[in-house]
Each structure stands twice: as C-alpha cells, then as structure tokens.
C-alpha cells in the first residue's frame, strides 16, 4: 500500500521538488488534513547555531562569521526561500532575546549591534552608536549615572582608548571604536561595546521584564566562568541607544555550583537564558536543568529533565505560566534501511525536536516523519511556532522547518482508554487504543506521505493532528487495504474509526 499508493492516489506530479510530501489540491481531504510543516529552502550555506527572530522572519546563523537569513522571500512557485545578509559579526552572535533590537556579538569584546543596522547595512554595520537624541523632557526622566559619557549628536572628543570611568565612579566604561571590533579612532562616536565581560564560548542575552520603548535592562550570561552582567539602556525615539549603564559582573548560580569542587559540580554547560532573562537552562551533572535566576545572580533549581539535551530555546512568556523549552535530541530505534546496509548510526541518530513543558512536567517529541532528519537549533517565535534547521533526507538540501506545535499537542492521555462511551465500548484496554491511534498514523503516512511509517511516536502525532471527520473518511476508504497488509491484527475498522474521534 505504501509508495505505490502515493503514486496511484495522488499522482507523481504531487511529489514536491524538495522531497517533502506536500499534498496537492487533488488529494483526498484527509491528506490535506494531516499536519505538514512548511519547509523553507535554504539558498547557499545554511550556517550553524540558528537563532530565530520573534516574528519568524529572520534567523541569525554562524559560518565563521554570523550572518542573517531573511526568510520572507519567495521563489517563482511561491515557496519561501532564504536570502543571506552578510555581516561582520563574529561566530555565534546572540540576539538580545525578547525583541531583537540589539545583537550581542563576541570576539575579544562583546559588541552590541542594532538589528536594524545589520539589516540595512550588512557588512558595513558597526556596533550600535550611543547618541542621546531623546527629547529633553524624556532625557531628564532617567538618573544620570556617575561617570556617564554620552555623545550629544556630535562625535565624542576624547582620545583612544577611551575608558571613561573616573576614580570612585561606577564601573561604567564604554569605548570608541571605528569599524567593527578593533581599533579606535579619535572623533568616532561612542559605541555599545563591553571589553570587560566577554567570552570565547557560549553566551546568551535577553531583555528583562519591565522594559518599554524608552528604557530596558539587558542581561548577558557567559559560560566560561558562569557569570552574568546587566545593562540598563535608555533609548532614543528611533530605538537607538541614548545611554547605557553597565552593572557589575556577577557570578551566576554561584550558590549552586560552589557546593562542590569537581568539574561536574562547577560547570553549567550549554547555558541559555530565557526570553525574559529570568531563567536559564543548561547541563549540570550530565542532565539538563532549568534554573530560576535571581537578581543577585543566585539560582534555584526548578527542573531536572533527567536527560542530557542539546542547547534549548525558551518559549516567549505567557501570563501565569512558565516558559516551555524546545531542544533537539536523538532516540534509539530499529528502522528499515533503504539500501540493505544497516549502520549503527542509523539506529541511534534518530534526531527529533522535543518540547518540555515545566507546567505539566511532560516531554513531547514532535516526531512526525517529515520532521525527522537531524533537526538543529530549534527556536521559538512569539506566536508559538518553532523553526528548526534540518537536512531533507530525500533531497539532502538544507531547509528550515516551520513547525506549529499547537497542531500536534496537547496529546491526549494515551495511557488509558478515553473517557467516552464509544471508546469504552470499543477498546478493552489502553494498549489496543494506542495501537489503533498508531495505526491511523500509519494509514495516513502510507496513503498521503512518501515517508515510511516507521516511528511509533510519529504515527501517534500524525494521527492526532487529523480532523476527526477526515480521519473517519480515511479509515473508511483505506481500512481494507491496510488490513490486507496486517492480516493478523485484531484491529477492526470500527477500532480505527473510534480512535479518530480522539484526534484534534
């Protein structure tokens, strides 16, 4: 029933150029009902360590330098394709999460670039200027930090280098730079650059709650020594920085990591802070933990996932709820091999995208089959989508998958027969019910997708994304053919039809 059915039912012309099962208008309605993520083809080099903008229109990736992928363009067929905007930022620049007004780029110093400048000027963009253009009334609202030096619409007159703290002042220092990251030229405007709190590996940044268009606090965490620094920023009406006050560098989670003396005690690996800078997730003692960050830099363990995950991305805050995290992980499963050779890596490197919800303590694999194939760097948008970079297993092209987790979760409780009369009359036990749900996914994948239905989790998710009416229609039209393939199965057409009613 599998691949031959795809061709006979949907016609070969419906198979897309990218290799993903995109269902044509001639296909049965239940094929259109099943969830298919949008795939954006990456033109040119994909780059690593993808970060996703709040609106999902841009991504920052690294390729020796950090560049921007504009995801808004379309090809002549109307499919989205990426366009690369090159910048001079060093490897693994990290946006100040929350609104992406600025991007924190490491490399000898931490340079804060305005995202708007990067989009408009590309490689000509420099770290953001600090120029106070605020209306006089607005400028008076903020207290003047000691030692503050702000250019007023004119180049600062000081010399190179230009550390500006004075004896007894706050540790507030900013520098004049010319170009990107090196060299300082007298007469150049003051830049949003920090030479004290910089890092070789793994930083992350976010805007703390309470910010507005006039004023906000940015937080940057660093990996090597487990430290953080806050920056209080006042903005001009156009969103550029009018002044910046650096707060003291603080040890991060010292109350926790200082409890032991070993590498495993002291190191929180792959740390990422939440979109509002109040939580952090990283590997500690080999498993992924979520920590609450207090203002003094001390931490409280909120969750231990019990597994070791790759770097996470937090979802945007929702009132009254804790943010979810999304990450890539691999599972072990047997699977068919297309060419007869079966390598250990094929059994183990079944990478997928997983969501952990700290509100329910549940982990959900978003494992429908088109989402298999080494998804990397998943990132959340403000409206709840997840973008992940992946390799299309069919075409070997790099693509960005746009996943709508709301289409796939919440998954009903599969550990018991649903509490409806029809389900209780139909299913003797939960296992029969879950097998019926998995079989629905297998039928859908067989008829509507070119992917082999090989993953149980994938079959669950795909089945549960179907519209119940479409699902019943699918069962009615395809049950016999499925039964011919599974003569020993005890599942009847009714089992499958009733299981349809438990989908979304």
């Amino acid at each position: 029933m599998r691949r031959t059915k795809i061709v006979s039912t949907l016609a070969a012309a419906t198979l897309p150029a990218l290799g993903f099962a995109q269902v044509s208008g001639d296909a049965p309605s239940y094929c259109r009902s099943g969830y298919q993520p949008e795939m954006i083809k990456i033109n040119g080099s994909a780059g690593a360590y993808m970060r996703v903008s709040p609106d999902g229109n841009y991504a920052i990736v690294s390729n020796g330098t950090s560049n921007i992928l504009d995801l808004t363009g379309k090809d002549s067929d109307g499919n989205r394709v990426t366009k690369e905007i090159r910048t001079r930022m060093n490897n693994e620049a990290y946006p100040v999460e929350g609104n992406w007004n600025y991007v924190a780029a490491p490399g000898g110093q931490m340079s804060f670039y305005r995202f708007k400048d990067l989009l408009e000027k590309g490689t000509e963009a420099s770290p953001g200027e600090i120029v106070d253009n605020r209306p006089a009334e607005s400028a008076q609202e903020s207290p003047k930090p000691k030692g503050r030096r702000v250019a007023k619409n004119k180049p600062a007159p000081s010399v190179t280098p230009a550390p500006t703290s004075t004896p007894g002042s706050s540790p507030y220092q900013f520098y004049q730079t010319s170009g990107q990251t090196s060299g300082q030229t007298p007469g150049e405007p003051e830049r949003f650059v920090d030479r004290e709190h910089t890092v070789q590996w793994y930083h992350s940044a976010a805007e703390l709650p309470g910010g507005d268009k006039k004023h906000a606090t940015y937080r940057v965490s660093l990996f090597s020594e487990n430290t953080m620094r806050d920056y209080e920023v006042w903005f001009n009406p156009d969103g550029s920085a009018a002044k910046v006050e650096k707060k003291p560098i603080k040890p991060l989670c010292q109350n926790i990591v200082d409890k032991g003396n070993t590498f495993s005690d002291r190191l929180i690996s792959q740390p990422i802070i939440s979109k509002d800078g109040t939580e952090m997730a990283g590997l500690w003692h080999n498993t992924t933990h979520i920590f609450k960050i207090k203002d003094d830099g001390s931490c409280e363990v909120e969750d231990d996932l019990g597994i070791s995950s790759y770097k996470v991305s937090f979802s945007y805050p929702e009132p009254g709820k804790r943010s979810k995290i999304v990450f890539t992980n691999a599972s072990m499963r047997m699977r068919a091999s297309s060419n007869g050779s079966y390598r250990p890596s094929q059994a183990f490197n079944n990478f997928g995208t997983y969501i952990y919800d700290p509100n329910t303590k549940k982990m959900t694999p978003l494992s429908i089959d088109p989402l298999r194939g080494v998804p990397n760097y998943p990132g959340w948008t403000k409206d709840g989508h997840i973008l992940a970079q992946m390799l299309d297993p069919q075409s070997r092209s790099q693509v960005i998958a746009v996943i709508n987790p709301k289409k796939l979760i919440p998954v009903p409780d599969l550990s018991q027969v649903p509490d409806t009369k029809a389900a209780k009359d139909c299913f003797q036990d939960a296992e029969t019910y879950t097998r019926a749900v998995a079989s629905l996914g297998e039928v859908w994948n067989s008829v509507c997708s070119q992917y082999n239905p090989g993953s149980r989790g994938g079959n669950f998710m795909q089945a549960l994304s179907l519209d119940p009416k479409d699902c019943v229609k699918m069962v009615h039209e395809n049950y016999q053919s499925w039964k011919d393939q599974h003569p020993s199965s005890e599942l009847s057409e009714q089992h499958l039809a009733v299981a349809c009613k438990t989908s979304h």
Partner: protein
Amino acid sequence: MTLSRRFSPYSRLAMPTLAFAASVFSTQVLGSALPPIEKIKCQDKLSDTLKTWDSAEDWRRQADPVFNGRAFRTPTHKIGTWIEVQTSPSGLPEAYRTSSAEILHFSWDEKCAPSVETRAFNIPKDEKVFTDADLEKLLKSGKAGAIYVWYPGFDFSYMAYDEFKKAAAARHLDVTVVLGVEANAEEIAQREKTFKLHLDDRRLESVELLNRNLTLHFPNSIVYANGKLAKVNGLGAMDAKLYGSYMDEQLKALKGSK
C-alpha cells in the same frame, strides 16, 4: 515460550527463529533490575529477559520515545553492548539489546506474550568508520587518551580543537578524532577552507559511543584510561583550562577504578 507476532511498526523486519530466541535465554547471569519507570507492565517477563543480558544496572534516562512513554539505557559488562528499555504510554515495555553486530528487540503484548526481532548491522567495507573494534584497540592499548567527536555544521568543532589538543597534550593523552554524524563532503571542504583546519573524518559507528550520546552535540569528547571510558562526556567547546578540568576529574576517577 510462545512467540506471537503482533502488529508492530517494525513488522517488516525479520523474525528470528525459535531456536535463536531460546538461545537468548540460555545464560543466567545477574543484572535483572528494572529501570526506574513508575509503571511497567509484564515486569516478570522483562526481568527474565534482562537477567540474560548481563546488565550493569546503571540506568540512564533518554528522551521520551513517545508522549507519556519512557526510555532508560544501561551498559552491560561488555564494551559495545547496551540495553535500552522503552515503555509505551500504557506501560507496556520493549527491550533492546544493541551490540556492534545487531539489535535484538523484545516486545510484549497485553497478555505479556513476547515478540522478538533482530536486525543485523552491516557497514560497507569501503566506508571510513570508527567502530567498537577501533575503540577496543584504544582501550586495550594500556594508554590513556581522549576522543574528540566533531561535525562540520557546528563551527565550534573547529574553533575548540586546538584548545582540546593543548589540554590533552599537557596530560600526555593520545587524541583520536572522529566525525560524529555523516556529513556532506562539500560542507566539510567549505568549513576546512574557512577554518584552515583538517579533522579526521572517520565516521562514528561505535555502538558503545553512540549509546553514550557522543553525537548529542558537537564538539563532544570523552577520555579513557585503565581500559575504561569516563562516565561523563566533555560536552561542548571549552578553552584548554576547562577541558583540562574535565580531563583531570575523569582521569582521576578512572585511575581510581578497578
């Protein structure tokens, strides 16, 4: 023992013979403890199976295979052979024993009747790979060393390599470099050009290292000494000082172990 074949996502795979399945149960050794999963059905049957598999009973949780399912993995006392137990949302278990030769998979239905299937591994001889046989050679060499696992899509794989090498050299460790996941040759060439660095591209096919999640993130690393692998991975890019802390901690543990 009756073997029944129920509908399974793996139903296309070959069923083993009864004689083969019986041989699986022929050796009685310790190691029957179940993984710490709250709800497991058919516990006696699962425990009987684990007894024959020489479990080291060092259960490590893995990502949930399905929503409300669980997965735990433990080494056995043989390099390259591990056990994984997965449970369905209703608590029915499946048990996998992976070795460099094959995967053996047991599952049970609601009546606890087992199904068994196997899948042999087969790596074409012309592929450049790092297998369990290569790993055993390192472990039996009597030397201490460190394995660096990389992937071209992760730039830090290149950027951290010199730091890793420095830390290893300071501790007189042999360094072995392994490509984590199959990668496009063009991508490798492009990254080599960018970073002006060539890294050995033998692909990781060691069941032991795959079970230890060495492909979870890149770069990744693990040290060995005294014929044993460290329990903790050196995950992510670090500077030489941090790599050194990792190596010192794990080498100390390994040298103190029997």
